[in-house]
């Protein structure tokens, strides 16, 4: 089984065909991680990112409606914790209810983050379960099956703990002799090529083939991935909203199409994310200045500043960062801005004309600080900063 990345691939071969040609249409999603916190960000920003995870559900369910899929498969880790606060599960039930459509079941699978167990959100006695509309099904049995279409059945098995060495895909029932229906498997876990998959619900290389599934819908890894063979693919749809910097092929759901003639399923990756997470390394002022003109309204931007600037340039850097990140009174150009200043050095040895006409004692102060600014290590750095403080004070006066 080899991995085939389909992100960005053009539409499926079924596009433009008559509806009757399609035996089954699915929307496959996973890893919503509702309630996930972002401790690296300031509280307000973290809340905004958390809210975005809830907002993306509308986009997912909207896409399902738009594409008129037969079922929505949610392959685990919809919540970041098995016991989320009501503020996370209650709105989800409302969204599911709002987007409900008869004959389009939504199947929720407990993953390793939100595993099934006594007292957890998926437990039949939990208020979340009571509040779910009828068309929403929770995989709360090991022998869960659900007819998706006249000739299509879903087989799924839930995670019951955070970690497990059991291959849930291999634990699903195998195709019986003479069974020609479309068999969809759904489990949550790590494929054989993931590090430490052995303890994270490992999924065998040939599980789909061995158990006779036409499509094995899985969740866990946030990137979109498709594993061979194309006739019986194993698919990670990717997280619908990015979680951290450096994630690739993220922010999508997978739309899956089965033709009546039982050829291989076609998979289309559709973007639903609100934010794009981007990390940029800035090593010169022109690059930084160019950022002001970019459209970053939906970008969570992390800037690594690796440049040495004069005091005047430092002022400009701060001004650009204010423009990008916003202030108490104005929104920034970027949706969210995170700045790593560890590589930003202000060379305040030359204060320009800032001290022209200043009292001699201030000039003397600058001279003394300059003498220390050339020293290596923190001594020099502190002196540089002191010079910059002096520069700012003199300028502001």
């Amino acid at each position: 089984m080899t991995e085939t990345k389909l992100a960005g691939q053009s539409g499926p071969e079924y596009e433009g065909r008559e509806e009757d040609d399609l035996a089954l249409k699915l929307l496959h999603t996973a890893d919503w991680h509702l309630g996930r916190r972002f401790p690296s960000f300031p509280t307000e920003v973290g809340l905004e990112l958390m809210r975005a995870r809830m907002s993306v559900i509308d986009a997912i369910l909207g896409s399902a409606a738009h594409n008129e899929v037969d079922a929505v498969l949610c392959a685990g880790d919809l919540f970041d914790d098995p016991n989320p606060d009501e503020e996370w599960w209650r709105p989800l039930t409302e969204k599911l209810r709002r987007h409900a459509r008869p004959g389009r079941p939504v199947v929720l699978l407990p993953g390793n983050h939100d595993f099934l167990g006594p007292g957890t959100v998926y437990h039949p006695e939990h208020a979340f379960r009571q509040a779910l509309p009828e068309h929403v099904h929770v995989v709360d049995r090991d022998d869960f099956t659900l007819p998706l279409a006249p000739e299509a059945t879903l087989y799924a098995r839930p995670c019951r703990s955070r970690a497990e060495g059991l291959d849930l895909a291999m634990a699903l029932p195998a195709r019986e002799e003479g069974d020609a229906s479309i068999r969809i498997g759904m489990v949550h876990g790590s494929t054989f090529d993931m590090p430490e998959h052995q303890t994270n619900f490992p999924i065998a290389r040939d599980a789909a083939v061995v158990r006779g599934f036409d499509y094995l819908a899985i969740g866990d890894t946030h990137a979109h991935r498709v594993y061979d063979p194309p006739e019986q693919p194993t698919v990670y749809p990717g997280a619908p909203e990015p979680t951290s910097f450096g994630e690739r092929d993220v922010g999508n759901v997978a739309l899956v199409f089965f033709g009546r003639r039982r050829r291989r399923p076609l998979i289309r990756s559709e973007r639903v994310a609100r934010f794009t997470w981007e990390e940029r390394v800035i090593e010169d002022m022109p690059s930084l200045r160019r950022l002001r003109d970019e459209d970053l309204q939906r970008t969570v931007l992390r800037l690594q500043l690796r440049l040495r600037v004069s005091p005047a340039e430092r002022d400009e850097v701060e001004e650009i960062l204010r423009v990008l990140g916003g202030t108490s009174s104005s929104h920034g150009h970027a949706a969210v801005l995170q700045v790593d200043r560890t590589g930003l050095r202000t060379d305040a040895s030359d204060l320009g004309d800032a001290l022209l006409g200043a009292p001699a004692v201030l000039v003397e102060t600058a001279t003394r600080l300059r003498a220390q600014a050339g020293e290596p290590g923190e001594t020099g750095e502190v002196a540089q900063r002191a010079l910059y403080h002096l520069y700012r004070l003199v300028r502001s006066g």
Partner: protein
Amino acid sequence: MRLLSLRVRSFGCVEEARIELGPGVNVLYGPNDLGKSTLAHAIRAALLLPSGHREAQEFRPWHRDAAPEVRLTFEAPDEPGSGALPRRWRVRKVFGGKGGQAELEWSNDGERFSLDEKGPGVDAKLRHLLGWGVPEARARGARGFPGSFLATVLLGPQAVPGSVLGKGLDADASESGRERLTEALQALAQDPRFKEVLDEAQRKVDEAFTPLGKPKKGKASPLTPVRQEIEVLESRLREEESRVHDSDTVREQLLQLEAARTEAIVARDEAEAEAQQARAAFEQGRARMRAKAEEEQAAQALEQGRAVLTELRQWQQAAERHLGMLPAAEAALERAREANDEAQQRLVQAEAAVRAIEEGGDAQSRLTRQALETRRLELRTERERADAAMQRAEEALRLRERLEQLDEEQRALGQDLAAAEHAAAQAEASRREADAERRLYDALLRLRRWQEAKARVDAARQAADEVARLRSVADARTVALDQEEAALAAARLPEPATLDAWRALAEERRVAEARLGVGLSLVVHRGSVPVRVWRDEHEPQATAAGQSVEARQRLRIQVADEVELEVQGGDPLARAARDAVERRWVEEVAPVLDGLGVPDLSAVERRLHDARERRASIVRRRHEVQRELDRAAALQQRADDLPQLEQVLHAREQALAGLDRDALEQRSSEHDEAALEHRRAHAEARIDESQHRHVKAKARAASLASDQRARAEERERVHAELQPLLAMGDPEEERDALFDRLAAIEGEQETVDEQLAEHDEARARQRAEAVMLVRDAQAEADRCRVTAAQARREVDERREAEAQARGRLAQLEAQASRVDEPALRAEVERCQEQLRALPEPQTVVTLEALEAAEAELTTRQHAMREAEADYEQLRGALKHVGGAIARERAQQTRDALLAARQREHDLELDYEAWKLLTQTLREAESAEGRHLGEALGEDVHKRFAALTGGRYGGLRLGRDLKAEGLEVAGALRDLGRFSEGVQDQLATILRLAIADHLGTALVLDDHLAQTDPQRVAWFRELLLQIGARAQIVVLTCRPEDYLHDAERPEASKAARDAERLRAIDLTRVIRRAGVT
């Protein structure tokens, strides 16, 4: 720093002096040569001069050989200029070369002092406390008085103008003086922009650091939120890493177990394959074996058939043989039974003999033993009685000895008790004596305090009277001044500017008139009528024909009574101008002149000059009135204290009630107050000491009495115990008798015990012999029984063998009837054929080998099951660990922690940068010392201008406060060009300004000697102003310059206090050497 008290002994011309100084201005006055300057020297020496310094030679007493001694008490904070609460210090120095001594003590309450430094450390500490830039104390014998610019300014000796004005901080060996001044003058010295920058930088520093420069902690620190975040994240990370570790451990184990399980499965599979092969080979071998067995079985059946026939024959012979041997065996059985019966009978007899011996043998033997036992018991009882008697005798002897010992102790305790009671009585007497003494000195002190209170009340009353008088005079003078001022206002004199305008108008008028003065000439040629002519302003004159009349500008001519002519000179414009000026004069000036009744403007000017003089006089007199009122206000405070002082007096009066005041007054002159205090304290100490001794002696007596009682009780108890014992006889004799009796009993006991042992030994021998007989009989009986049993078995065996042979014969006969020998031979041949049909196996697997293979398989299966179980168990454990989630969350927390640490580091560097900036700003400011001169110069300039009425410009001070010259008429002039009086005044103003800014003590020794009384009065006011912030000690021989009469102490007193002013009559506090 503030000086509190000075005590000098054997110092130069001063034999002894004690001075208590007030907080404001202290005027210490006395005649020349009294030793005023010596006191100033003493203060300098106490603060600056090491006790072993060569300069101290100057202070050796003039009239005798003694070590000069100074004790100075002062207040100063631990760090100069720190603003911290001051601490009280007391320095004592005895000057004398190698024998010099120095001590520095400190106190928080001014009463209890603790040693801080001793010896050479004292001067180093003093220099630190002062912060005047005085160099470190030099070695003993060094030359030159240690000093600095500030030391000279604040404590300088007489004739200092040059030394103050001609020097600056640049000559100081230490920077502390400059730092101190820089700090004190900072607010004045800073440029506004610099100050803004410094204030902002300091504000940022204050956010993160304490005043001592240490990082703030807790909520006060701006780093606290990020540090708390770091703590939370670190704690969370520890937990998460622990979970990750657990997960990793489980995962590692799981991988190992999975490998082990796979290995076990492979091993199991291999073992299974091997077992299967072995099983097949074995089955093959077994089939061949079965065929062989069948063949053998067939052969065997054939053989068995043949054997049955053979055996049948043999059994027929055996049955006959057994039948023949049976009678002999039965006879042997009968013989054995008889022998057994006899042996049993002998055994019964032998056992009866043993029992008889164990029961005691014969009657004689039993009686003998019983008698011996009885005697032994009697002897034991007798011995117990003798032991008890012996104990009683020994107890009686012990008690008698204790009784004698107690009598001896009682005697010794009686002596000690008498001694202790005597000591208590002595201590009580001593206490009473000391108490009487204390009451006496207490009364004397009360009398003194009453006298003091009375003096204060008198003073307050005098002050009240003086206040009333001063206010009355001031009111009267104020009314007179008001009237005078009203009269001046009523005079309506023109303003000087108006007068100037009028003068201009007068001049204009004069010029206008002059322009008309062209010259006129009139000649009467003929006529007979009289002609009268007015020329200019002159009187008319009669003019006759032929006469001529000359005028300057106007002529009026009257001809007879009919004609009157007027001729004016000048052009019409000049005339019009003159008329206009004249009109203005008439309208503006003339009425005023008329109003004032003066003829011209000169008179008006004189009037104005007189009015100015009078106004100045009024202002001066108002100032005088104000000074009187100020004095009255100053005295009023003292008068205000009168009720309180009267209450104090009343209270002290009451405290004297019941005392013989006359007698006390007679004695009160014997000692001064300090001596009385000392003696009262001494008496109190004696009371305490006597009470302590009394209590101690009483306690000792009580303890001894208690011991005595305890011993008496013990004696009674011992006596009571001893009496009944003595009643039984002399214990010593009884003890000796008992010793003999016990020896006899012990001897007899030994004899009885030996006899009993012999008796028991004989019985034991008899029993051993009987037992041997029983054993022999038993052995014989056993042998007979065995023989009988053997005979019985022989008979039974014969009978059984015969029966068996008969049975077997019957069986064999039946079997023999079924044996078909030909059929059996045919079967054998078939089996041999079948065996030949089976192939030989390639490997021979024995049953053992097969079992071994099976066992190996079982072991492998077991191992595999165990591996499976372990694996499953660990999988169960895996459910309880964090797995990938834990790692993911740990990474998330690690990222957040890294970011928080970076933020913390960034903040730390930023605040360190603010701190560095603030330090550098201050250092740069300190280096840019020009400010000191500029800042202080302004202060000095203002005061000097006020003193001199603005006659001079500012005093130019250099960066090190060195005077560079005085500005006069825009030019800087060298100070040497000014009089000594002016230099002295400048120096004094500079010194006062420095003391004012530093808030420290200033000693002015005989300054302003060449200053006129008016300026001295001005200085007095300045001293009183600055005295509110800094202490000033003025040593002068001209008390009238600084003190009003009312401010001087009474004739009997050494000092007198007014507001911010203490006057000290040095003649009352200095005892000069050589004066008796």
